[in-house]
């Protein structure tokens, strides 16, 4: 069964697409958590509040980015993946949004492979 995470469903300003992306993305992070929880010994990571991204004010987006970065930082060592600080982008601006998307998607491809969650 394919995952719901689709990197190509969102363009800047596309609210329905952003909602679908955020939904699938959150579920993908839950898959990583499940994969880690199934290890011996189990690695338990609590979900971070990054399900909702549509309609957020700028301070809420900053909080979302920070929470999301923390989740990535916790997961990276178990996947032997390194990545940039994904909280350091102003995704309310188109250029930064697309740059962030590219870097973020690239990291998720590696995480998907590491956790067999594609």
């Amino acid at each position, binding site marked *: 069964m394919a*995952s719901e995470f689709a990197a190509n469903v969102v363009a800047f300003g596309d609210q*329905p697409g952003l*909602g*679908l*992306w*955020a*939904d699938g993305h959150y579920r993908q992070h*839950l898959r990583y958590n499940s994969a880690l929880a199934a290890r011996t010994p189990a690695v338990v990571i609590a979900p971070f509040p990054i399900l909702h991204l*549509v309609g957020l004010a700028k301070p809420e987006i900053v909080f979302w980015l920070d929470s999301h970065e923390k989740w990535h930082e916790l997961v990276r060592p178990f996947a032997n993946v390194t990545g940039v600080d994904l909280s350091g982008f102003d995704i309310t601006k188109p250029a930064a949004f697309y740059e962030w998307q590219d870097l973020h998607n690239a990291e998720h491809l590696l995480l998907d492979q590491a956790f067999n969650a594609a």
Partner: protein
Amino acid sequence: MPAPQQEQPAANKFLAYLGWKKMNTKVARQNLPDDECAWAENLQPLAPNLWQSVNGAAATLTVVTAKTVTRKFPANIAGIDYDIFFATDGSCTAVNANSGAQTTVAAAATFSTTPDMTTYASQRILIMDPTGGYATWDGTLFVKGGGLSPNINVTNGGSGYSAAPAVSFTGGSGSGATATAVMGGSGSAQFVVAVTLTSPGSGYKAGDAITVVFTGSNTTVATATARIWPITSGITLDVFAGRVWWASANAQGNYRILNFTGTAGYDDTNTANAAGSTTVLDNDLSHNITGIRNKNNFLYIFGDSSVRQIGSITVSSSITLFTPLTLASDIGTTFPMTVQSYNRLVLFANTAGVYGIFGASIRKISDDLDGIFALADFSLPMSSSLNDVHSTVTAGGSIHCYLLLLRYLDPVQGTRTIICAYQNDQWWIVSQGNALLAIMAIFLGSTQQWDTFASSGSDVTQLLQTPGATVSVLFKSALSSNRAPLLSKRVIRAGVAVTSGIAQSFLLTAETENSADGHTLNAAALIIWINNLGQQVNWQNNSPAAVTFVGGGYRFPYTAAQGEGKVIGGTVSGTVSKFALNAMAFEYVDAAIWGTIP
């Protein structure tokens, strides 16, 4: 420069409504900005200066005699599009959406007034009902609890048949089930490829073991398995990831149990095949699961005050695994018939308004309808549709719309049903029947577009369908002070820019907060024929009587008008077709500063 003491002529001023961004019913007309209108009925916004009349309703497709609709669902079975018509007497009738031909699915007293329905693989409809339980119809055969399932699996086709063997069923506590064998091969080398149930019988009970018996000359006898149709009831269902999901009641009578069939089909309740159930224990499901809907690759589980979502499912050791996410703990609906997928959103309505699910985020999208929802009568359950609305004046094109039917306590026209139409973040009103009871959407195979079927009782009528039909339009602008709220204004003239495909008239009412002055205007122009000598040509028919030619097009009719107040606006109304409203303008003079205190 006028001489002293000479009366100064009042300077004429103008107020023009040149474009409307949207309809907004949330605030009173005098509180609206000039670029919002207070009401737009049967006028679809195509541009800020182009609000165009919609197609009228088609002639009644058919009448389901002596029935009153309670819910309607679309279905496609073997290439035929149906309007599935559930009636208040508990019956169900399938209406061919193209021909209007009727087929009785279930007799009266079979279902409650709130059945739910979905379609399985264009093969059959599946019905879930608190009274009638789980049932199915494949275009021919109706099966419900107590009968055998039509899902008969041939495990060995046998060999050496020269004709179809008789099929019978033994075992179990029921009787009356009949079936026929479908044969492959030819001559004396035929074999059974399928078994078609022709009557489900009755009286079968859960756990009954059924044996399929083939009687006929053969070399090797065919074998098949049959099972009873699941005996269960519920309040809502849908098909997701190839499984049937439904909500059933717990011991306290609350619909909190989420059930799902196994991997062997719509009738597979065998836990060995990963069928199962889970009870929603969380307290944010206040009372009941009210709707289960498969939309946009997710299964949404609506409660009366919450929404959950299931994504992909997996099977591990015959157990179905999935992750439900709670999307909202304080927003839900008791109106499952309002749920639609719309442009990658999932839309639904409750008594507070219409909401869009953006992936996982739920946002209210109907603030502009707050004035309507404040006067809605929810004793008529809201229902919804999708419609590709075609323009009637400009050629080509259509706009995909979400339609929400509700009963409106209209302070002017009295209680009536209206349809709130949503497109491109704008709302407008469709009115094609003051006593509609239900609407629903069918994606018609014949037109490859979304169309709306409605019922006011026993009728089945397609809305927004007939380009030449007249519709009643009603458009109310804001009431504007024209940036001079202190000045009282005296209206002199009023006019409306319109585009019309035919010669027709309409009513313009020039309004202030104190007055309403109505005038009939013509959206037409007299066509004058000139010959090559430059002379006017007059025509007569064979009566003989003078014949005049009148054409439509862009016009700006105006009239002298009266009224005085601090704010000015207008209402356009009439019964028209192929009509578009482009602008509205008023000429006035200033009257007294501060005016008269009423």
